[in-house]
């Protein structure tokens, strides 16, 4: 290893760091650390100015290690690694020190100690950097096919998009029919059309597409592998089928809550909107004169705090339809906040009001009460505006209940190793900027399995997931971050501990082919399967297996630096 020449770049982040940590003092301190040949402060190291300073200094000072002390590697590591690469330095010779999230932002009242802590963090980073080694990323080919799980609108949109881009798509739907939730609807908001024809045209396009292989009714039984190379096996109508795909899109949808409120299921004239739509579709609704609809049934309550996003529009849609069917009918919508966001929903709401639908706002502390023993006769509600309880005659009570996660989310989550978050919906990689990606590469999420969404949002997410999935498919090659495990076969005693702890079956005991070690049984890592967790490295008794980027010597150096040892 060449003698380390470490450059340290310390970011003010405007005042985010500089306002708390005495950055110039940290710079001076860094200059005195072993192997540091250059240290400087930047207003924003992530700005083009900061980046070019890194590049220039790599050249000027012949740096062979770079340490940036700024924010979090979780967002900025790729940027600085790329800067190193641009300047001809292997990107793995870069080390990140977090002095913002882990220092300045959490010690705003204690500048002295924050500065001391920042120094120590930099010292630890430099200690690790001294032992960094250049790494080559493992490259693997992407199998040019996708699996889309779920044949609702989100899944079908994703499948069609990828198929039209020329990729083979396996569409796996658990029901015997495509269309998902839409099939149960009577009309769609805000266009007020029946879904049948609209869905049919999409279903036809999917079914007739030469690139789409439809598996129906089918469920995913097992999935293993990694981006570019997933082995999937499904149960298709009782038969096991296996295939290979490069990417996976999860678009499994959600279900509608059947509430245990307002005597639903006990009184015949209490329906959910889904029940109502089914009856309308089947022409089985019958006569009605006084319709009351209650929103937020089972939603926005402590045990289910979220807003299901689309129930308000569903209620408005059906309320207006009730008026349309029977203009003489009295139709009330009892709501909390009315979530008619955007342009069209607001208009939709206005039109329903104009059509004579009455909207009454109730407060959760005084919820509506159902009157009647065999059937609902009336609904009592405290009207906030009138400041009094009103009793509304009712021969049809319709409840707007939220979308809730599918029961099989957890199983799928375990199988694909993707997380479930708030309320049991799938958790995306970043709620703001990576809404349709999972943290696991090569697996994407769209539609209501991620969060309640209406049709256009689900379709957009389907397309968006297809867009992210098309990237590796089109690139044809993915690179794996070089933090995978490596074995020193000279030291490995072939005990197999690493094999036992590896969650990904990435390690095997094999006869060595290395000269001088022929025939010795040693552990061998399949870089394509290794996900870089480092479990093996911690378990190996003689440390013959190491995780790149997190080696023993690197971690130990940090510990020693922190405790003032060399």
């Amino acid at each position, binding site marked *: 290893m060449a003698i380390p020449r470490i450059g340290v770049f310390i970011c003010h982040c405007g005042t985010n760091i500089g306002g708390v940590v005495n950055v110039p003092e940290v710079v001076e301190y860094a200059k005195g650390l072993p192997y540091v040949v250059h240290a400087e402060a930047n207003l924003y190291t992530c700005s083009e100015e900061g980046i070019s300073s890194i590049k220039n200094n790599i050249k000027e000072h012949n740096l062979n290690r770079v340490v940036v002390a700024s924010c979090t590697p979780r967002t900025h590591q790729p940027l600085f690694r790329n800067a190193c690469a641009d300047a001809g330095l292997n990107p793995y010779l870069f080390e990140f020190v977090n002095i913002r999230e882990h220092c300045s*932002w959490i010690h705003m009242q204690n500048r002295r*100690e924050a500065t001391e802590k920042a120094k120590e963090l930099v010292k630890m980073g430099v200690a690790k950097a001294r032992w960094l080694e250049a790494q080559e990323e493992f490259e693997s080919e992407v199998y040019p096919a996708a699996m889309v799980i779920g044949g609702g609108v989100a899944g079908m949109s994703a499948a069609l998009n990828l198929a039209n881009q020329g990729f083979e798509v396996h569409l796996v739907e658990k029901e015997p029919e495509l269309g998902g939730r839409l099939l149960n609807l009577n009309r769609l908001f805000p266009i007020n059309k029946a879904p049948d024809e609209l869905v049919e045209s999409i279903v036809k396009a999917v079914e007739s597409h030469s690139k789409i292989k439809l598996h129906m009714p089918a469920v995913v039984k097992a999935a293993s592998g990694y981006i570019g190379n997933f082995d999937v096996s499904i149960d298709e109508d009782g038969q096991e089928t296996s295939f290979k795909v490069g990417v996976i899109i999860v678009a499994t949808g959600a279900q509608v809550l059947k509430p245990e409120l307002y005597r639903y299921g006990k009184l015949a004239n209490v329906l959910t909107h889904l029940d109502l739509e089914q009856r309308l579709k089947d022409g089985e609704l019958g006569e009605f004169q006084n319709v009351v609809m209650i929103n937020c049934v089972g939603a926005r309550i402590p045990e289910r705090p979220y807003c299901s996003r689309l129930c308000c529009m569903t209620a408005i849609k059906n309320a207006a339809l009730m008026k349309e069917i029977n203009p003489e009918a009295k139709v009330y919508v009892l709501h909390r906040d009315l979530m008619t966001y955007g342009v069209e929903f607001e208009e939709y709401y206005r039109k329903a009001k104009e059509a004579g639908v009455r909207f009454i706002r109730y407060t959760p502390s005084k919820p509506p009460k159902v009157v009647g023993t065999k059937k609902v006769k009336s609904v009592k509600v405290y009207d906030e505006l009138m400041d009094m309880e009103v009793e509304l005659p009712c021969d049809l009570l319709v409840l707007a209940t939220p979308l809730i996660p599918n029961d099989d989310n957890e199983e799928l989550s375990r199988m694909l190793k993707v997380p479930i978050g708030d309320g049991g919906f799938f958790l995306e990689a970043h709620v703001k900027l990576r809404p349709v990606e999972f943290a696991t590469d090569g697996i994407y999420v769209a539609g209501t399995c991620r969060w309640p969404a209406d049709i256009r949002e689900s379709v957009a997410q389907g397309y968006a997931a297809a867009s992210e999935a098309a990237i590796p498919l089109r690139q044809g090659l993915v690179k794996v971050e070089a*933090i995978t495990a490596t074995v020193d076969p000279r030291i490995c005693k072939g005990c197999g501990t690493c094999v036992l702890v590896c*969650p990904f079956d990435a390690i095997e005991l094999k006869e060595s082919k290395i000269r001088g070690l022929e025939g010795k049984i040693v552990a061998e890592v399949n870089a394509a399967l290794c996900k870089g*967790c*480092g479990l093996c490295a911690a*378990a190996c008794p003689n440390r013959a297996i190491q995780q790149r980027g997190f080696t023993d010597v690197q971690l130990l150096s940090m510990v020693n630096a922190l405790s003032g040892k060399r």
Partner: protein
Amino acid sequence: MKLPDTKEVQTEFKPKILAFCCNWCAYAGADLAGVSRFQMPTNVRVIRVMCSGRVPPELVIRALANGLDGVMILGCHPGECHYSEGNYLTRRRAHVLKRLLSYIGIEPDRFQLRWVSAAEGAKFSAVVKEAADKITALGPNRWGDKR
């Protein structure tokens, strides 16, 4: 066995605590604590590892023998490990290690395993505060540089 009480009373003792955080949950939780500006004691220094399961007992033992006053391993909640089962293995090791450390006289609070999710910025800061308080109460680690 009767031994004299050797506990020193020190004023202004600020323990130094090392926290290994897994990249996916605890480190992200620590980031969130930062983004949320949850203020907390300055004692803790974080080392990022990809999984709590990467932290070998050797490193914890070494850190304590070096004189660090406390070592924490923070990982994903059971069942939420990014690598499925890393934290379960960590949990087994930690149980054994904690008891072993206690056996030779290193107070149990000096080595802690805690679960912090990516969404638990507040929990991260609570964990840091709690550790700092407890370890401050214990006083300096007497095993550091012991001759």
